[in-house]
C-alpha cells in the first residue's frame, strides 16, 4: 500500500467513525458529502454538502462509464451540478440531532455556469458570526471560481444566508479559480491560501478586498506533491494544524480524466512558517476523498471528510495520538 489509511490506522486507538446521514426524503439530491465540522462551546456543528449528482469513479478501470472512469452523473434532464448546504447539530456521540437546509433564496441569482451553489463550505465563527466559506463558480459564463464568505443566521428557527461576499484574489485578481482556502479559526478573515510555499491572506469583508499578509518560501526539503488547501486551520497546543490534499490529475489512455487525491496533516508555527508535513494518507482507501473539516473538542480531534463525493463521515480521534503521524505532537 503506497499510502496509509487514516481510519484503519487509528482504529485501535479509541477512534470513532460515523456516517453522516439525514433522511433522503428531506434533502435536495442524492449525495451528502464533504462535511465541515465546527465546535462552538462544546456544541458540534457540521455542514453537509448536498449534491444533485452522483460521482462515478471506476478506480480500477474495470467498469468505466462510457464517459470515462471518473464522471459526474447528473440527471439527464438537468445538466447542472448543484450544491445545497445543510447545517446539522450533533450530539457527543456524533449522531445528528437536528438539521436544516440553509435557505439562500434572498441572495441567489440566476446561475450562469453548470456548477451551482457554494461548494465545500467550511464552517467558521468569526467576530461572533457564523460563516460558510467555500467556492462559487456560477457567477460567470466561464465558471470563474472565487471563495465566498456567507454569513448564516438562525431566524425564526430557519437557517438563512444573510450576506454573501465574493472574495477577490489578492492583486492581480485574474486567476481562473480560487478554491480551498483554509480559514484560520482564531484569526478573523485570515486564510491560508496555499500550503507550500505558504501564502496567508487577509480579507476585508466590508470593503471586499483581499491582500497577502505572508508569503513563505517554498521548502523543497518537505518531500511531497503539490499541496493544496483543505480543512480549517486550528490552533492546537501552540501550533496551527490543518489537513490538506494533493491531487494527481491524469488521463486514461483514451484521454478520459482521472485523479487520485491524497491527504496530509500540515503544521505551522504561530508565524505561519511551515514546519511539518505528515506522510500522505487516504481516509478510507478511496482515490477521491476530500476533507474540509477539522475541530478540537476536549481531548479529541474531529475530522470530517467526503468519500467519492457520495458519502460523508465524521472521525473522532484522541488528540494524544496525533503524535503517531506528526512528530511535533509526539
Amino acid at each position: 500500500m503506497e499510502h496509509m489509511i487514516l481510519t484503519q490506522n487509528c482504529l485501535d486507538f479509541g477512534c470513532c467513525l460515523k456516517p453522516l446521514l439525514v433522511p433522503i426524503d428531506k434533502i435536495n439530491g442524492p449525495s451528502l458529502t464533504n462535511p465541515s465540522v465546527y465546535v462552538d462551546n462544546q456544541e458540534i456543528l457540521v455542514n453537509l454538502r448536498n449534491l444533485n449528482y452522483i460521482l462515478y469513479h471506476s478506480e480500477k478501470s474495470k467498469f468505466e462509464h462510457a464517459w470515462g472512469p471518473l464522471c459526474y452523473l447528473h440527471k439527464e434532464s438537468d445538466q447542472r451540478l448543484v450544491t445545497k448546504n445543510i447545517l446539522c447539530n450533533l450530539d457527543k456521540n456524533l449522531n445528528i440531532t437536528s438539521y436544516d437546509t440553509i435557505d439562500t433564496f434572498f441572495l441567489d441569482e440566476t446561475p450562469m455556469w453548470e456548477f451551482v451553489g457554494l461548494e465545500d463550505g467550511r464552517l467558521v465563527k468569526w467576530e461572533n458570526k457564523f460563516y460558510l466559506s467555500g467556492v462559487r463558480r456560477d457567477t460567470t459564463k466561464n465558471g470563474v471560481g472565487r471563495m465566498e464568505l456567507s454569513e448564516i443566521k438562525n431566524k425564526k428557527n430557519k437557517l438563512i444566508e444573510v450576506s454573501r461576499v465574493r472574495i477577490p484574489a489578492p492583486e492581480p485578481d485574474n486567476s481562473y479559480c480560487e478554491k480551498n482556502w483554509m480559514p484560520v479559526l482564531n484569526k478573523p478573515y485570515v486564510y491560508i491560501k496555499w500550503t507550500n510555499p505558504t501564502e496567508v491572506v487577509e480579507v476585508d469583508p466590508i470593503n471586499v478586498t483581499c491582500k497577502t499578509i505572508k508569503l513563505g518560501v517554498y521548502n523543497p526539503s518537505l518531500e511531497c506533491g503539490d499541496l493544496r488547501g483543505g480543512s480549517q486551520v486550528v490552533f492546537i497546543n501552540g501550533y496551527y494544524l490543518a489537513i490538506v490534499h494533493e491531487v494527481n490529475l491524469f488521463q486514461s489512455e483514451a484521454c478520459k480524466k482521472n485523479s487520485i487525491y491524497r491527504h496530509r496533516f500540515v503544521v505551522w508555527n504561530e508565524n505561519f512558517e511551515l514546519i511539518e508535513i505528515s506522510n500522505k494518507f487516504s481516509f478510507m482507501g478511496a482515490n477521491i476523498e476530500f476533507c474540509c473539516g477539522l475541530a478540537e473538542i476536549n481531548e479529541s480531534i474531529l475530522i470530517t471528510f467526503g468519500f467519492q463525493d457520495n458519502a460523508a463521515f465524521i472521525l473522532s480521534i484522541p488528540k494524544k495520538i496525533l503524535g503517531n503521524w506528526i512528530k511535533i505532537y509526539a
Partner: protein
Amino acid sequence: MHKELIDYIKNTEDDIYNFNLGVWYEKQSHKSPATSFYLRCAEITQDKNLEYECLLRLYLCYKGSDRDYTCEVFLKYALEIDPKKPEAYFFLSQYYEFKKNWFDSYFYAHLGLMVSDKTPSNFKTVIDYESEYMLIFYKAVSAWWIGKNEESRMLFNKLKDEYKLNKFYFMLVEKNILNIGVGNYYTSSIRYNKKYDDLKFKFEDSEKIDKNFSQVLQDLFVLTALNGKKNGTYLEIGSGHSFLNSNTALLEQLGWTGIGVERNPELAEMHRNERKNKILCENSLEINYEEVLKSNFKENIIDYLQLDVEPSINTFMSMCLIPFNDYKFRVITYEHDHYVDMKKIFREKSRNYLRGMGYTLVFNDIAAVQGSSFEDWWVHKDLIDDSIFKNLISCKKEDINLAKDIMLKKK
C-alpha cells in the same frame, strides 16, 4: 460504529465488506453512497456471481433517478459477465418497456428466454426476478406493441394457464388479458344458417328460422329448451350490441318482450334506436332488480335470463343481486369467462350458486373454439318440458362443449 463500517475499515479492499457497506447504505435509503461501495466491490471481487450482483444493485440504485443511460451501462456490463444469467435480460426488457422502446424490450426478453438458463441466480440480496414468467411477461407486453398481437395473446394466456404468478404480475396479466381482448381466434362465433346447417334439436316452427344472432347459438338453445316459444319474456344483463351476437334479437323477432341492461351509453342508444324492447343504461352492479322486475314483469316466472357482464367477478356479483327467491327463470345462459378468469374461481362459484337455487346445468363450458370455454347453459327442470329436459341432458358432456357440436349438424 456499526459492524459493516468497522469491517470495511479493517480491510477496505475486501469485496464482501465493500458489498455489505453498500447494502447498509441502501437500507438507509441512501443509494448514492451505496453505488460507491458496490462499484468498488465489482472491481475488486474475483467472484463472478458477486460481480454480477453488484452491477444489478448499481442498476437498481440508479433506476428511476433520471440517469437512464447509466442504468443501461450496468445491465450491459452484467450481460457481458454472464450471458447465461436471466436477470440482466429481464431488467433490460423491463427498462425498455418502461421507456416504450418496444423493439428492444421484446429483443432482450426474447434473448433472455433463448440464451439464459432462466432460473434465478443465487444472490446475497433480493433481486426481483422470480422465474422465466417475468421474461415472458415483458415479451408478451412488447410483442403487442410491435404488431405481434397473436403472439402477445398466446403468451399472456400461457402465463395465465401455466405459471404461478406473484400478486403483482397476476394483476398485470389479468389487466392485460382484459385490455387486449381475446383476439379473432378466441372471439370466433358460430352461427346458424338454414342453407348450410341443420338443427340437432327441432322445436316448434324451427324450420321458419333462417339465421340466428347469438355468438354461439344461445338464442337457439333458449328456443330449444322452450320448444320455440312465442311471446316469451327475458331479462338480459349485459345486452351488448343490438343485433351482433345478441341473444335476444331473434327472440324479440318472435314476439318476446323483456328488458336489457347495458352500461355502455352508445350501445344502449343503438338498442333504443334499433330494437323494440326496453333497455336500461345502467351499471348492472348498481341496479335494484326487485324494482326492475316488479315494474316490468307481470309474472314471477321469466322465460330467459342472460348474464354476461365482464369481467367474471362482475357477472357473478350481478347475479347475486337478482331476487331468485321471488323470481324464477326457465332458462339461463351464464357467461363465466373461465378462460380469462385469472383467479379461476367464478365459474365454480356461479355453479354452486345456481345449483343452490334449483337450476340444472345442461351444457357446461360452451365454446366457439377449443380453449375458450366461456359459458354455462342452465334450465329450471320444473319449468321446462320434461321430455325436452331429458333430451338435452342426454347430450351433456363433462368437458368443453363446442356450440356447433351441441346444436348443429351439417347438411
